[in-house]
């Protein structure tokens, strides 16, 4: 579904990624892990086209998308939830959902489908998104990405800085989406969540892929050492 080969990118002259390659198969959930500052967010931003790739390619569904703009990738079916429960603060919750719905030219019931997964948002539809709590904003961010009806979801630390009860809801939502056949590329810092959700994992260190494997491998001591701070 998504294949990244030899990806190098960074900020200006500061290179962050050095030849990262990874594969996400159809319906697969791949978890990208690693300490802070190893290039996880940079990887996702380059996959989405927010940052240009210096070299390497990003292929989605057999199509080279390396040179496409972010909105063009969204239209091909790549849904992105960036880090930090971002929203359009002065639009209502409904406005946040509608604006992506209209941009992606999806039918209206895509909103209902997204709300079924996050029923906590239903009573908040008229509220300004900027007034929601962090956890509610994160649920809104995921619902907003789902409204574009993606064939793959790219999530950057959806549980970061969120209260435990909502973390569970978000985890359950990811699990349901994955079970329904959606491919997911997930950056996650919590090892226990990664263990429960991931089919396979990729560990980054210093902008390189240092380990890949299945969820069982995450139990191994040498793998855990790569994640320890």
């Amino acid at each position, binding site marked *: 579904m998504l294949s990244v080969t030899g990806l190098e990118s960074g900020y200006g002259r500061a290179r962050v990624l050095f030849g990262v390659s990874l594969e996400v198969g159809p319906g697969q959930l791949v978890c990208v892990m690693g300490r802070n500052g190893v290039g996880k967010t940079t990887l996702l931003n380059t996959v*989405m086209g*927010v940052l240009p790739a210096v070299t390497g390619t990003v292929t989605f569904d057999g199509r080279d998308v390396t040179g496409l*703009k*972010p*909105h063009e990738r*969204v*239209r091909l079916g790549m849904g*992105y939830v*960036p*880090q*930090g*429960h*971002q*929203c*359009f*603060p*002065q*639009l209502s919750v409904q*406005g946040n959902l*509608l*604006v*992506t719905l*209209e*941009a*992606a030219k999806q039918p209206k019931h895509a909103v209902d489908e997204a709300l079924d997964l996050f029923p906590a948002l239903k009573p908040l539809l008229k509220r300004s*998104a*900027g*007034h*929601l*709590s*962090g956890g509610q*904003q994160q649920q809104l961010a995921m619902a*907003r*990405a789902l409204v*574009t009806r993606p064939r793959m979801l790219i999530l950057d630390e959806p549980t*970061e*800085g969120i209260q435990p009860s909502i973390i569970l809801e978000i985890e359950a939502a990811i699990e349901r989406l994955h079970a329904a056949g959606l491919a997911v590329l997930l950056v996650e810092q919590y090892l226990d969540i990664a263990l429960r959700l991931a089919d396979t994992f990729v560990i980054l260190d210093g902008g390189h892929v240092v380990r890949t494997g299945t969820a069982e491998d995450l139990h191994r001591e040498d793998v855990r050492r790569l994640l320890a701070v």
Partner: protein
Amino acid sequence: MSAFANQLPIGLSIGAVLLLIALGLTFTFGQMGVINMAHGEFIMAGAYTAFLLGDLVPALPVAFLVAGAMGLILERVAIRHFYGRPLDTLLLTWGVSLVLQQLARDLFGAPNVQVPAPSWLAGGVGILPYNRLFIMGLAVAGVVAVWAYLTRTGLGRRTQAVVQNRRLAATSGIDTGRVDMLTFFIGSGLAGVAGVALTLVGPVGPALGTYYIVDAFLVVVAGGLGQLRGAVLAAIGLGLLNSYAEFWSDASLAKVIVLAAIIAFLQVRPQGMFVLRSRALT
């Protein structure tokens, strides 16, 4: 007392013109961070459109289209290659502004020209002359139209999304380049409408825009970037302050008073009257 009261419609109509100009700027400056010094020349273009047509009412839509098209061309041909480089954009648009002023001198001559006011705008009610009332009405219509566009249409919603979080808008599937283009068209078009309004209260010259551009930027900064209600309040406030300061002192001292007031205000509220706020991680 009546002289004091007479300043009210003058101040309000100056505020109304500033508002029409600032409505466009608040989006190009607030949304895209582009300091477009050539915005003043779109006012001038609107005013000369009224001069060429010689009639106010048909001039309004035509000026909107003429100035809007100029803005669109400027954005496509030049400004979009300089996004994220505010100082270069400032120099570029200032240069364009000078070129456009010279072009107007070559086309229409350096001396000011006069657009005859339509006869149905002669007279007034009480202290309110019809021509100034018309300008205020135009500004109200402009605000309502922009507000309706932003809150009632899909395109407007996309514009708001880009203003509030550009990168998130892009990764949510919004074509930010197209939104920028459209915003530039509408913003520049409104400057053209302001230019038509200005023909009611004074002569038209090649440097017309330069008298208003700085004040319009002050409105945008004082009101808060990309904030409609901020622009409305700041424009009315600045218009009234301008005309009363001129009434109590003289034109040049009034400018000093207005600038001092804005500097003092920005000391207290550097982000302007209204700010975008959200709970964020950072």
